[in-house]
């Protein structure tokens, strides 16, 4: 055999890189250092308090579930803009079952009701080839309508309120006490960085519920299922190249159906997490408040990967917790953190000789710093939407590095491939 003469349209880029887990640890560490410096220098101690961390966990949970739902669907090539609707269905189902049979039933029913919404989306998009976004919008509309109708029918007699379920019994929360006690001591030691890290860890380990654990488990489980099993390989292949998958005997329709139904189920779990949240146990009309869409944004933010999604929803939950707890002053302090980050990024890019990008980062950092310097506090009206603004900014900066599944959102017909 003679030496193969090959043409390489895309040069192989195989530079040595840190393994994924190390990169993420590094990112987390840098984030902590920046927050710690900011908290110390601005005096905004809420930035790294246990309470903020704990609130962030509560707030990120529904978003995380919804985002995982989005991840499952989009990895199989179906865009799920109906997450919000499926989440609403989940809240209703969870409240309905939870009221009668307790919190575990609430979780299960939330998942089932969400999955029903997913099934509908699968029928519309996979079987009938309806545009995914269109179907998602319609399902959100329908989900809201159905739950309102059902609540009038079923909750009104028991709660005397058509917009609300009767209160449910929730999970008991628990803390990992020995550890939190140690952390508490560290927090009180009042050492820069140590206190900050301990505070955040303490928040993460306090007030745990099975719902939180489920969320924490769902991320690695999703990763393992989708990236480390044959099932996941098949499912992902439907999102990358369904024609190829079909040619290898993968039942693309079936995997798409499974993915979208699981997606709905996860969104429904997000709804259940909301219903079982410590704030109020029960269904309340409009309580999802767009969290399904935020979940989708968090997933895109996370580059269609579970770890990234976790980071995205954590960022969202964190900023939201911060602005809810400490208001405009804390968001103002975030500007300071933003400046530090911009400078760090600029240094990094200078080191890699991306001159232009580095200069832009510096300019951005300067602008942010000027805002920080000349404004005393962020008006509450803007602070309230800090999470959305942060998400927009991150997407604007990072969108071109994102890599959606190749066949995401495309219509696929069996046997119509080349």
């Amino acid at each position: 055999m003679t030496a193969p003469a090959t043409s390489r349209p895309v040069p192989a880029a195989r530079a040595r890189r840190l393994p994924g887990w190390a990169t993420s640890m590094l990112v987390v560490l840098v984030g902590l250092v920046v927050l710690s410096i900011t908290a110390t220098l601005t005096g905004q101690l809420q930035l790294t308090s246990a309470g903020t961390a704990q609130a962030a966990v509560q707030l990120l949970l529904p978003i995380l579930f919804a985002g995982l739902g989005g991840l499952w669907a989009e990895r199989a090539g179906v865009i799920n803009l109906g997450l919000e609707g499926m989440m609403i269905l989940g809240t209703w189902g969870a409240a309905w079952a939870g009221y009668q049979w307790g919190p575990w039933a609430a979780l299960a029913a939330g998942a089932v009701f969400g999955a029903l919404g997913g099934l509908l989306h699968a029928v519309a998009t996979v079987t009938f080839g309806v545009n995914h976004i269109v179907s998602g919008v319609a399902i959100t509309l329908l989900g809201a309508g159905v739950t309102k109708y059902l609540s009038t029918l079923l909750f009104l007699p028991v709660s005397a309120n058509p917009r609300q379920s009767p209160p449910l019994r929730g999970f008991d929360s628990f803390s990992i006490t020995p550890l939190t006690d140690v952390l508490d001591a560290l927090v009180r030691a009042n050492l820069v960085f140590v206190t900050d890290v301990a505070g955040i860890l303490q928040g993460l380990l306090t007030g745990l519920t099975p719902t939180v654990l489920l969320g924490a488990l769902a991320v690695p489980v999703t990763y393992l299922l989708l990236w480390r099993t044959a099932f996941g390989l098949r499912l992902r292949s439907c999102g990358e190249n369904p024609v190829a998958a079909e040619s290898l005997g993968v039942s693309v329709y079936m995997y798409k159906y499974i993915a979208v139904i699981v997606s709905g189920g996860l969104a429904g779990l997000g709804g259940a997490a909301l219903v079982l949240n410590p704030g109020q146990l029960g269904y309340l009309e409009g309580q999802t408040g767009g969290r399904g869409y935020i979940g989708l944004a968090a997933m895109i933010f996370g580059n269609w990967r579970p770890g990234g999604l976790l980071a995205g929803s954590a960022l969202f939950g964190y900023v939201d917790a911060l602005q809810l707890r400490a208001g405009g002053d804390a968001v103002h302090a975030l500007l300071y953190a933003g400046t530090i980050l911009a400078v760090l990024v600029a240094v990094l890019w200078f080191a890699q000789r991306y001159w232009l990008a580095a200069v832009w980062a510096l300019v951005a950092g300067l602008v942010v710093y000027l805002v920080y310097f000349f404004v005393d506090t962020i008006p509450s009206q803007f602070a309230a939407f800090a999470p959305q603004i942060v998400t927009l900014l991150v997407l604007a900066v990072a969108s071109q590095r994102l890599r959606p599944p190749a066949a995401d959102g495309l219509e696929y017909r069996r046997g119509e491939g080349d």
Partner: protein
Amino acid sequence: MTDTAEPDAPYAVELAGITKRFPGVVANRDISLRVRQGEVHALCGENGAGKSTLMKILYGQLRPDEGTIAVNGEPVVFRSPADAIRVGIGMVHQHFMLADNLTIAENVLLGAERRLGIGAKAKAEIARLAATVGLDDDPDTLVEHLGVADRQRCEIIKVLYRGARIVILDEPTAVLVPQEVEDLFETIRGMQAEGYTFLFISHKLDEVRAIADSITVIRRGTYVGTADPREVTTRKLAEMMVGSELPSPQTRESTVTDREVLRIEGLQLAGEGAPLLDGIDLVVHAGEVLGIAGVEGNGQTELVETIMGIRRATAGRIVLGHGDRARDITKATTLERREAGIGYIPEDRSRHALLASQPLWANRVLGHQTRPPVARRRLIGLINRAAARKDTQRIVEEFDVRTPGVDVPAAALSGGNQQKLVIGRELSGDPVLLIAAHPTRGVDVGAQAGIWDELRAARHRGLAVLLISADLDELIGLSDTIKVMLRGRLVADADPATVTPEQLGAAMTGADGPEEGAA
């Protein structure tokens, strides 16, 4: 139908009376095919003859409307490719079935995870198979980093990994240069010795005669006959395929003038790593067909798209016209270039040339939306629908587009008629330059001859043509000058009057310059 079955050994594959209808078309009509175990059986036919459809049926991707399939003597019914794989059939598609964002290992393992799992054991097996087909990349490499030949190797590994004994190769040589074809044939012969059976689909008769043990010819969806490659002549085979005399792409007399129409100087297009286009210089004159030869993926697509303004050159100049009327269009938009008189036949008709669900007349407007007759002369910005219909009707008549009317959607037309419409459109409005990328790809024989005639006629009228084609016969037959492209550079010139396809192929891979003047 021949009836020469050996009594003891059952046929590896036996298709009988296969009929498959698509809306408006019978793709396969009562086709029968018998493949002996351990042979390389070629399936020949022109583009659109129904070869791929037949193979998709054998691979379970399509279900026949009528007819039966038997494998190794056992009658089988395939509901999906999984069923076909189970009885030992594998298929390497003409268009690779690979997911770019998955690794080699993942692509191979997909659908065959049960065999060895997806862990280390499976990867070891893949590495072993990779060695046998000459693929030297790590199994964890993303497929997007592989070149064409390596992708094909990856496809063959997929088939082997599944334990296929009967391998369908659908036009495997279409994307390969002659040297790579020779490598492929080596591999096939080696595997044949190990007892594999091959179904080899091609319309390249020399290749078929070189590799096949027996040949089945189909034409327009029907079975024509079976031939023995040792006995049949190429001419006879061709007549079986085409049903008549082969059309020839020969140009008659030279019409080349010394009037420059297109001048490209030092054209550069940056890529992520190596440049996609590197220092391209060329000149096309009025009445000249300049052919660009090259293995796909060496920058032809990028060259065409840069000339059309779809991509922006990072350096260099593109000048349209000559003397006083020369115009630097390097920074012009696609529309401005079209308005300046460039016609464009893209390589991918359905994606780049047509609006599938729009009527023919609306497709006539595309690319001409600012120019009469389809745009109103006085009221810039308005579309003249009546004139668009009328002019579409003209194209339909002049270019023999077979359609019931100009209001049917483009998707309702067959590929050849779509292409004739596109060519008619691109030759409307008196262009000075036509960029034709693979103008006869996926077109039936009759339409192919018609398209060649149109290109010749336009050249005769003084049109400058930049022709890109993977069909070296077409390229040699139509061009006045040929340039060879390799890794984004023009590496050699060739005279179509003397060059052979083999010489061109060598130049395309960079192995050897053709004798008449390497650049």
